[in-house]
């Protein structure tokens, strides 16, 4: 992050960002409310919040999601939102939610990236989320071979549950 606050938006830009997010969230199958906050967060760009029903779930997208999207060396907005939709599936999908009870926070991040990868139409976004899941396992000390093997097993399992 270059500065402590995002640059001011031009008139109409807030609405344009909100519409873009809403369209992408819909394409990805997100249920619930979607909002855009023109502030920097510590989330990386977006956050899923679980409500008392799926309709009351909340997807909040922050300014850095758009900055990352504009950087070809970083995640696109679609990839960021697909990851959050992955979190919603972990919480809401009847078969998946049952299987992930008790999974650690780090484990949830890996599964959300895999589910997000499955949802992306664009292959660039799909492979970036696969790379993110791999990086999480490498950070936990796994070898490249073990990480790719484990991810393939999880991919197979999630595919049958989805």
């Amino acid at each position, binding site marked *: 992050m270059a500065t402590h606050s995002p640059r001011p938006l031009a008139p109409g830009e807030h609405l344009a960002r909100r519409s873009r997010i809403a369209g992408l969230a819909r394409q990805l199958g997100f249920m619930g409310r979607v909002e855009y906050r023109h502030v920097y967060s510590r989330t990386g760009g977006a*956050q899923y919040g679980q409500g008392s029903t799926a309709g009351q779930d909340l997807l909040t997208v922050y300014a850095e999601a758009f900055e990352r999207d504009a950087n070809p060396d970083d995640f696109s907005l679609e990839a960021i939102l697909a990851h*959050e939709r992955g979190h919603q599936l972990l919480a809401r999908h009847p078969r998946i939610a049952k299987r992930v009870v008790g999974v650690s926070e780090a484990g949830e991040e890996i599964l959300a990236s895999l589910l997000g990868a499955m949802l992306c139409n664009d292959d*660039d976004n799909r*492979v970036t989320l696969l790379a993110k899941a791999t990086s999480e396992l490498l*950070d936990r000390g796994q070898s490249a071979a073990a990480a790719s093997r484990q991810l393939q097993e999880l991919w197979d399992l999630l595919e049958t549950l989805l």
Partner: protein
Amino acid sequence: MIGAKKLSTIRDEVEEAFSSRGEDPVQRLEAQIASAKRKGNRTEVLEGLKRFLERSRKRKRRKQRVGARIE
């Protein structure tokens, strides 16, 4: 949350992890894909990582070419 780690950092990590003993990571992934296929195993993850590294390299090369032209 997708977290603050940049995709370029992730690319470097993945590249390093798959290039043990100085081997080219894309070639190593190709060998692993071939081996997995021979065993009848699925390869979505290995193939995805291979495409990820290949595209990152292309982008890097394009950037270097543009940089050289500007200089």
